[in-house]
């Protein structure tokens, strides 16, 4: 069994990278707004599903299908913010209202996908363009390599965005202190919208790069949200590098427990770990990017 370990590790890392990206998306929304986006996993699902649709049904060439899928998902994310979050924000809704609302969104989106695109699992071909790597006994497929490369690019780009651009810093400022950010002239409502857009973008990228590996289905969202959440708890909400590390931990844990126990119990192990973590380290293992003051819900 032990000689399986390297393969499981690599497998876990690849899955974990996607959980990490999702965790970043969750963290961005949470930091900017204090809201936990229960629909985050659905952005991943939508990215994959729409790409499969554009490619398989509409007949687009793969690169175009991918771009359209990402754009479509971002638009959906922004629409959700505008239609569903903004009115609640404007009338000062309590925290639990957002949780309820996003759960509703997380119900509606998969159903729309199911009714609009279909029930069956869908996929599309690997991107190609990158080689298959042979690391000792382990084979890293071309698409798996794509996952890793994209993850690195995303992390670097985000760090550049938040660290160097005025807009990124403005988003951070909004997360640190919404009222003072407003006094600086930062349009807080637009920051909220942008955070949802970013979360959708990240989810879609994750979904698009991941689907050729495992295919996707309309109800894949919930598991993705939960795994992303677990990763975010380990890494600390909003901490980019922490999120990736958290994702890797979750991915590897899941990979190992799925192999050694079973796929169902593999998930149970993850959630058990998550549960224990929340009790010991409610603030996350790495300190969250910003110490937020939100009304306890």
């Amino acid at each position, binding site marked *: 069994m032990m000689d399986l370990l390297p393969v499981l590790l690599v497998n876990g890392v690849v899955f974990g990278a996607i959980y990490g990206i999702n965790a970043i998306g969750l963290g961005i929304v949470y930091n900017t707004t204090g809201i936990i986006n229960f629909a985050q996993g659905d952005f991943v699902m939508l990215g994959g599903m729409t790409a499969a649709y554009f490619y398989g049904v509409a007949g687009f060439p793969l690169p175009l299908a991918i771009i359209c899928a990402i754009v479509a998902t971002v638009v959906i994310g922004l629409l959700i913010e505008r239609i569903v979050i903004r009115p609640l924000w404007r009338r000062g*809704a*309590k*925290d639990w209202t957002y949780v*309820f609302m996003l759960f509703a*969104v997380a119900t509606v989106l998969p*159903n729309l996908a199911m009714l609009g695109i279909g029930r069956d699992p869908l996929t599309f071909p690997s991107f190609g363009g990158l080689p298959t790597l042979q690391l000792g006994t382990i084979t890293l497929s071309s698409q798996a390599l794509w996952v890793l490369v994209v993850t690195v690019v995303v992390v670097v780009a985000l760090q550049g965005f938040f660290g160097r651009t005025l807009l990124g810093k403005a988003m951070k400022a909004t997360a640190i202190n919404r009222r003072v950010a407003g006094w600086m002239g930062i349009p807080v409502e637009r920051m909220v919208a942008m955070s949802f857009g970013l979360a959708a973008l990240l989810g879609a990228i994750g979904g698009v790069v991941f689907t050729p590996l495992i295919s996707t289905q309309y109800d894949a969202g919930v598991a993705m949200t939960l795994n992303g959440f677990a990763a975010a708890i380990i890494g600390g909400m909003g901490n980019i590098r922490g999120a990736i590390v958290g994702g890797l931990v979750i991915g590897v844990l899941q990979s190992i427990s799925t192999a050694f126990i079973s796929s169902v119990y593999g998930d149970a192990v993850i*959630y058990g770990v998550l549960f224990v973590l929340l009790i010991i380290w*409610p603030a996350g293992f790495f300190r969250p990017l910003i110490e937020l003051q939100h009304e306890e819900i």
Partner: protein
Amino acid sequence: MSWRPTNTMGVVALTAIATAFPLFGSASAVTVMALGGLYAIVAIGLNLLVGYTGKISFGHNAFMAMGAYTSGILTVRYDWSPLSAMIAAAASTGLVALVIGAPILRVRGHYLAMITLAFSQVVILVSTRWTEVTGGLLGIPGVPDFAIPGFSFDTKLKMYYLIWGITIVLLLFSFRIVDSRFGRALRALGAHETAAGALGVNVVRSRIQIFVLSAIYAALAGSLYAHFLNYVNGTFFDLSVMIQLMAILVVGGIGTLWGPVVGAVLLIWVSQNLGSYAEYSQLIFGLLYGGALLFLPGGVVGEIAARLKR
């Protein structure tokens, strides 16, 4: 909301309507309304949790499942009497809720939602795979009719009356809670936690207590469900049940006394009248309750109450 004389009238009216309904409705309508009663039971418990403490659980479908399975297994495999099985179901589910809830409710409430969601996912998954115990995808058939010493509820009609009888009792019980010192403490919690804490309300313990109570309500409903259908299957309690519960709560009116019952009756009626649109049921429920959150924040009961005040 507090106990007012009008609530007594409401309970009397409800009892009268529930009693008379089978005289006018068809057999299938009675079955539907019995199901509505079951949902109402869970919704009443969930409403206490969300409405008065602002914490959310997405795992109550799992508590229903646990109640159903416990009753099913104990009565089918170990020949327990349905009544003792039901008590065991309530107790064991309450215990599980305590184990999950206690650590989490000490921390941020946002996380309770995620944890209970994860919990319910696991429970439903396990229930359909753990064939030795739960019968896997086949479930547990042959669950006996509910019975108390000397009387067996062997028809759907008798179960209907049992269910609504229990619903009304639990509703009254929830009224008492809301109006008790405990309930006032809960409402203080909902309004301002630090203030409540300063006033000596044991915030954490109250939260845990209400969470466990709501889980017990759900388990009771699940247990009744098992006896009603004479069958237990985990897939009956999947996430779509949670969605319906949310819709019931929101459309009925969160934090109102009558919201859960009104919501349950309304929505069970909707779900049964979808006809050819049955495929769209989850979508419709999701839209309904999202829409209610946006446009009808007080729910049906809340809106009516607001109109009456003017």
